[in-house]
């Protein structure tokens, strides 16, 4: 790591008059593999390193990045950047950060089967073994990616944090066809760990099983009934719903309008804290510290210690996601949600691992107590408006529930619902949580960041299905 260059850059920015300075030096080494229809399409490896410097000068915020570690070059672009920030000061907003504790830490995520010890051939064979079980499908697109991210963070208030986080992710996209009809399945898995996670995912067995189920759904599924009914949603649907309609609208940069031009704003306002948003049994948690999770970290990119948070507690809006800038504006403290996906972009408020807390019921009990409805176990498509209020989920694997039993498969049932209705209609929550991985996009330039989301099976009472 270029720790001494980071210290040099911090001092240099201070010499130029910056009141507050923070520096991130990052080194990322990665490997990527694509298997398309059984054919190894491309394999790659990369080593990226660079430095990102964020500063406040006359209360105006500036950010500069480079992958050139030459001291003279860094001094030169810092001078230029500070000059750009000064030039824009007459049309700039005063930015202040909340006071936070000085942190000093070094942490590493352990790997049992190290990324560095796996050859390209071995990694590619992981995809080939999975593909071996689904060769009958006309189109299979599988990717495997691993990365080791080393980061050194420092700021002018004395914080120094070093982290070492390995990540593995595997994505598959399948087209399942039968009699001129098709259904497609996209799913990704991710973990902060070594390659030991592959066995745990057990995708060699799970993916062919999923493909068989979806084929059966395609062949034997009935048209979805329409109207108000009980809708049981699986962990996968609960996960995407909690990410899109709880996590995102609780991001305070959206609430304050900072992301309005691209990622949008929020239907949530500051005044809604401690007001009802869902039924009493609903609790939503955001927790970056979950071990081996895809969104894992212990300190954010402002050097603030991460912690578990209840976004919804007993159906009430409980806490938002903050960085130091929004915390100052809302007169509170940061809760450690500031993340950048690389050294060359500013940190933004991001989710990490977001999930619905488990309840008391088993999946069987929820089905058994539903007289008539639909079980939407997985989804094929979703979207939500930019205030996170109107959303739509189209079911993938789905079944009719009749007299407390799963009967026939249903093709593509649609839930198109407003956010308060969704979270207020939940009357049963399962006791087992499943989590799923994703890359969440936000910001300009676009930053895709690893996130994890999930929950238990849940029943939504009397929801309109299309």
């Amino acid at each position, binding site marked *: 790591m270029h720790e001494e260059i980071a210290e040099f850059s911090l001092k240099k920015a201070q010499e130029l008059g910056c009141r507050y300075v923070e520096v991130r030096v990052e080194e990322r080494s990665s490997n990527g593999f694509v298997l398309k229809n059984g054919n190894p399409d491309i394999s790659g490896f990369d080593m990226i390193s660079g430095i990102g410097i964020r500063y406040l000068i006359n209360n105006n915020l500036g950010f500069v990045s480079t992958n050139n570690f030459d001291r003279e070059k860094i001094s030169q672009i810092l001078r230029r950047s500070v000059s750009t920030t000064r030039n824009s000061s007459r049309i700039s907003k005063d930015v202040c950060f909340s006071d936070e504790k000085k942190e000093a830490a070094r942490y590493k995520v352990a790997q049992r089967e190290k990324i560095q010890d796996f050859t390209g051939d071995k990694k590619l064979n992981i995809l080939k073994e999975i593909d071996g079980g689904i060769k009958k499908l006309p189109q299979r697109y599988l990717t495997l990616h691993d990365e080791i991210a080393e980061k050194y963070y420092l700021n002018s208030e004395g914080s120094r944090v070093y982290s070492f986080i390995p990540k593995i992710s595997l994505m598959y996209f399948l087209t399942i066809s039968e009699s001129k009809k098709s259904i497609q399945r996209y799913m990704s898995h991710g973990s902060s760990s070594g390659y030991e996670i592959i066995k745990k995912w057990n995708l060699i067995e799970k993916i062919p099983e999923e493909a068989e189920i979806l084929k059966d759904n395609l062949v034997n599924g009935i048209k979805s009934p329409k109207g108000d009914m009980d809708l049981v949603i699986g962990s996968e649907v609960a996960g995407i719903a909690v990410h899109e309609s709880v996590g995102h609208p609780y991001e305070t940069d959206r609430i304050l309008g900072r992301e309005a031009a691209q990622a949008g704003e929020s239907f949530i306002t500051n005044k809604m804290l401690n007001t009802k948003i869902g039924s009493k049994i609903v609790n939503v948690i955001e927790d970056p510290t979950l071990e081996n999770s895809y969104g894992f970290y212990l300190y954010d990119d402002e050097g603030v210690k991460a912690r578990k948070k209840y976004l919804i507690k007993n159906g009430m809006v409980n806490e938002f996601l903050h960085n130091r800038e929004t915390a100052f504006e809302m007169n509170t403290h940061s809760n450690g949600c500031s993340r950048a996906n690389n050294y060359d972009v500013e940190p933004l408020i991001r989710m990490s691992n977001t999930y619905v807390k488990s309840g008391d019921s088993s999946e069987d009990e929820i089905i058994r107590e539903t007289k008539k409805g639909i079980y939407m176990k997985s989804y094929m498509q979703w979207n939500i408006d930019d205030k996170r209020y109107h959303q739509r989920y189209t079911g993938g694997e789905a079944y009719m529930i009749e007299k407390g039993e799963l009967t026939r498969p249903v093709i593509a049932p649609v839930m198109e619902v407003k956010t308060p209705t969704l979270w207020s209609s939940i009357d049963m929550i399962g006791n087992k949580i499943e989590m799923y991985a994703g890359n969440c996009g936000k910001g300009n330039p676009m930053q895709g960041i690893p996130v994890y989301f999930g929950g238990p099976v849940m029943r939504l009472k009397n929801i*309109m299905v299309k």
Partner: protein
Amino acid sequence: MESIIYYISKQLSKRGIDDVVVTSSEMEGKHLKFVNNKVVKTGSELTSSISIFCSKDKKIIYTSLKDMSKSKADELMKKIMEFSRDIQPNEDYYGIAKGPFRYKAKVDYDRGIMDMNESDILEKGINKALESSKRTTGDFEILHLKTHLVTSGSVDVLDHSSSLYFSIRAFNKKDESGHMTCCSNTLKNFQIEKTSERAAEIAVLAKAPKEVKSGRYPVIFSHMAFAPLLNNISEAASIYNVESGFSFLKRLNGRYGNFTLMDDGTLPDGFNSCRFDEEGVPTKRTVMVDRGILKTYLHNASTARKYRTETTANAGLISPRPFNIVFDCKKGDIFDVKEGIYITNVWYTRFQNYAEGDFSTIPRDGAFLVKNGKIVQSLKGLRISDNMLNLLRNIKCCSKDVLQIKSWEAEIPAFTPEVLVDDINITKAEH
């Protein structure tokens, strides 16, 4: 940097690599982000990198070098050789383009953009929108890029590009907003005030929106709203996406409606124009869909050889991709509808099934009910839930005015008119 790319190219060939493509890029950028009429962040970036694509016995490797020293290049090449022993061949790979080539395209270039006063320009943009809206939010980006491409296929070519991008969203009261972007390779063609004026104009029109009844409507897509859909359609024309299941354009020479869709990397003012593609083939205009008939997919040299056709100069060394999309169809009065909906922006387009074309997308900012050719009501809370093949079949006519649109939802710049499409399914969350 110049000497390093020749060194890498020669050394890799010496070591038995069959195809080598080495691309160096030196990028300098500035970024002003503004929120509620004030700049909240200035950004500066300086990045140099070398990307390397190589094949050895059909084994394809992609990597990059960020430290330009000879010793780091040697380390990287050693790793490439080791890595190539570890992986397996791509039987679908048929080699890079063989040059040398002659390059004719002349792309607009403005050397001075990095030295201009970006704050003065941005201030004009913000102030223009504030003449009729209450608050504005957006981005202003300035970029200079130098690219040098050397390949084992006798290509050695250099290019400079300059670009300016502005995105502004204007707001009045709750749910009353308008969004517009502009992009250009030169300052003289950069219409920041006109862009701001349009965003604010939509925000004013969007006064007091109401929910619309679900159903099928003729829909008029503004330039901003149609460009993201053109991105989806053009990406579906990449042969890579057809092979992977990401395309609804599955019938070459099949009829998809009555419109023309082209890719053109040679347009002087095209935001993504470049004299050459990623393997050095001179860019050109490619008619993908000619009056409704799908004439060709987008190819690079390797995919073209596989399908016994010519490259369309759209490398992407792995996945062919468009440079600048150009759309055309019958000109007409796009507001000639008894009852329809005018949409000025879309957001979060997602496919339920790429192969079938089932998708939905969410109109955002101003959306309007149109009766007998006139806007009568501002709308909110609606969604398009339809099929892309239906949409293409139902294209009726387009306006004469064409704008180049690039946005968060339309990463590939599109030269598009406003377009009237019949019989589009509009849905909404009822509760």
